[in-house]
């Protein structure tokens, strides 16, 4: 006697649309409950979220600006995830990207932009790649759990940044807890008329490239195959170590580009609040986009608007708690995962 699960035989595309609507409905319902508990009229709450995300040109510009780093970390989770690996380390890899970019900028500050910027990007990619490679290597060689490794490396990365910027070698002598400024030659140019660094296009191109890699290339096929059944893939001749090393390391590099964008494009220096939890948002956005890189572009943009920026304005304008954004992301995932599950299974009481 109890709940029993059965796989549906007749899952079809027709139900997919219904699921999106059910998911949305559930999300709106649960958000309303949260608003009511906080003593806020849900209509005002939703209006605030929407205005806070897409309300005017300025807000929209901020959202597009933040979409870039968030898209990078989303892809940083998505790529290894296709190989069945959980990269919880985008946060740390993002920091290391900032470290690499800032380090190069400070060391070669007299170089012209044309030399400096590519080197900074390279520095970000290499540092973040090495950071992810540590986890990837230990996973591939002696099968240490990558979730634990990447998570711990996040804290080490944060401490490294604190060491460099708070009293360390890169500390800004005039400021408090930040590095010296990246010279103007090392700043990423912005789209004219806005304050959005052009790295947003790099993020979008990276997503499209990833999509093409999964669709059209042998490497993408191998990563996918390994993610679905490691044993069968290894038996077919796929090199497991290579898949693990490449997917995790390249994932880390993508997160590193996010760090490059943020330090050289937005803040202009390295700070220990370069990212505050964005690496973890990436995990949730990747899950929401069902590991599809093209969907990731749209999902990241919408989520950045509604759940990051919009939720922030709930905090500032309506006085809701600071964790409200993450709460909503969590609620949304549950609202979409449950109907997704019900698409494949039926539950009955026996």
């Amino acid at each position, binding site marked *: 006697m109890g709940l029993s699960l059965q796989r549906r035989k007749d899952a079809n595309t027709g139900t997919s649309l219904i699921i999106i609507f059910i998911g949305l409905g559930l999300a709106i319902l649960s958000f309303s409950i949260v608003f009511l508990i906080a003593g806020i009229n849900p209509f005002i709450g939703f209006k605030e979220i929407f205005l806070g995300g897409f309300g005017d040109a300025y807000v929209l510009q901020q959202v597009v600006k933040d979409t870039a780093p968030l898209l990078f970390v989303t892809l940083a989770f998505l790529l290894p995830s296709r190989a069945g690996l959980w990269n919880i380390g985008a946060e740390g890899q993002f920091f290391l990207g900032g470290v690499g970019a800032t380090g190069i900028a400070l060391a070669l500050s007299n170089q012209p932009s044309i030399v400096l910027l590519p080197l900074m990007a390279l520095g970000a990619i290499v540092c973040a790649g090495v950071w992810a490679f540590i986890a990837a290597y230990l996973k591939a060689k002696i099968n240490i759990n990558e979730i634990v490794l990447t998570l711990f490396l996040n804290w080490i990365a944060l401490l490294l940044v604190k060491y460099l910027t708070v009293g360390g070698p890169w500390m800004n002598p005039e400021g408090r807890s930040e590095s010296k400024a990246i010279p103007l030659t090392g700043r990423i140019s912005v789209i004219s008329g806005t304050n959005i660094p052009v790295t947003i296009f790099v993020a979008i191109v990276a997503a499209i490239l990833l999509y093409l890699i999964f669709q059209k290339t*042998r490497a993408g*096929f191998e990563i996918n195959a390994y993610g679905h059944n490691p044993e069968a*893939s290894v038996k077919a001749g796929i090199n497991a170590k290579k898949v693990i090393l490449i997917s995790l390391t390249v994932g880390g590099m993508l997160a590193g580009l996010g760090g490059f964008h943020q330090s050289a494009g937005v803040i202009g220096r390295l700070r220990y609040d370069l990212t505050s939890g964005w690496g973890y948002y990436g995990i949730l956005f990747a899950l929401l986009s069902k590991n599809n890189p093209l969907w990731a572009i749209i999902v990241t943009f919408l989520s950045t608007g509604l759940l990051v920026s919009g939720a922030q304005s709930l905090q500032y304008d309506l006085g809701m708690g600071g964790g409200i954004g993450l709460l909503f992301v969590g609620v949304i995932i549950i609202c979409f995962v449950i109907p997704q599950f019900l698409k494949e299974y039926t539950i009955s009481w026996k």
Partner: protein
Amino acid sequence: MKEQRQKNIVREFKKGETAIELRGITKRYPGGVLANDGISLEIRAGEIHGILGENGAGKTTLMRILVGELKPDKGDIYIGDEKVYIRSPQDARNLSIGMVHQQRKLIPKFSTIENILLGDPGTGILPNIEKSKKKVKELSEKFDFDVDLDAKLWQLDAGEAQIVEILKVLYSGANIIIMDEPTAGLSPIQQEKLLASLEKMARESLAIVPFVTHKLPIVTEVCDRITVLRNGKVINTSDSIRVLSKEELADWMVGKKVLFDFEKPETELGSILIEVENLSALNDQGVPALKNVSFSIREGEVLGIAGVAGNGQDELAEVLTGLRKPTGGKIVFRGEDITHASIRKRRELGMAYRSEDVLERGVIGDFSILENFVLSSLYTQDFCRGMLINVECARDIAETEFSNFDIRAPNIYTITKNLSGGNLSKLILALEFSWSSKFLIDQLVTQGLDVATTEYIRKRLFEAKKEGKAILLFSKDLDEILIMSDKIAPIYEGELGESIPSEKTNKREIGAAIIGK
């Protein structure tokens, strides 16, 4: 149908009395497959009643209905004169129906007695192990079972594990015992012992219902009656199985004449394709499982390795294919030392492998049939080489093999995990036959397959032999090994005996060699 729970019916049957009766059991799956079509059956206490049928005949569905995992759409089940409802495994247990699964549902780290007690409603919160042991010992003595109750399950061989499953069912008080492929994975000696015990159980007025696809002659030997299923219907129920020829049985099962013993083609043997010298390896527990194994196979030659499961066959296959590292020795394949070569390199050189645990290692369930063909073609076919690949690259080969192997699915874009067991087995074969390998390692060629597919596979293997491929065959089925191989080597506790030409040996000789005599 009344929706209350099935009440407990505990009754002792007299020998010859009807234990359970099915009337017009019909089950149609969503998607339209009519798996059971008006099946009526009567099973008596004190008989071994074999249910025979090839893959897709409806055996699994019927079994699942009997143990409460599936509900029939139509039809009634009677125990004695009483109509009963089996809506859950719990109901089945209350009706004293027990099931011995083919895939054993036991816990390796638990001892035999713990496994027997596990899940039994009578065990209670504080199990009285000593008392239960006494009861199990009585059961063992009664039916001639020989198993150490304190041994951990992982220490037992396949035959002993099978006995634990049976003891578990007997301990729970079942008197209708359903068995799925009771002899699968057992050596000839273990099979004989098991079947003798089943006969003893039947004499104690238990109803034994083995469901069988392969090892027909051995199992039917002990059956008092058999029922043959085909396409979800009862084709025949016979009392006089002992006089039936296996050709006649196969006829019933497939509905057409099938060839059982066909001639092995005479082929010219070429040069030595693979040579193995003093190969040694450890098993997963770090214990030497392969000891100084040496053999060689020529082009167009089939070497059969006969042995009881767990004597080093898996380790040998894995070392050859590169899945396991050897601790010593040398493998030379097509003139190249590949002892430490990657799996990819071995496949590129033309080494194909069909493993025993087909579902875990053979295919990717979430991929379509076509995508699985791409996977197996990655390093073996020219059309899937290069940095850029398109899944359509394998379409021709996938379509061809799909129809050659008669895989029952809508098309090659069907997601693999939706295929039935028999069709999956065929697909795995098709995957490894689809490319022009030079050397084929095949574990348990026809296990779990129906007669028609078995025949087709043997034909394909002989064709491969004619094309000059070398074949290494692992099988526990001595008849099969004798039919298929040019030479046979017994394996026992990791040591491989000398290869003997198959015409110079016989079943008895090999049978003795694989149990170390």
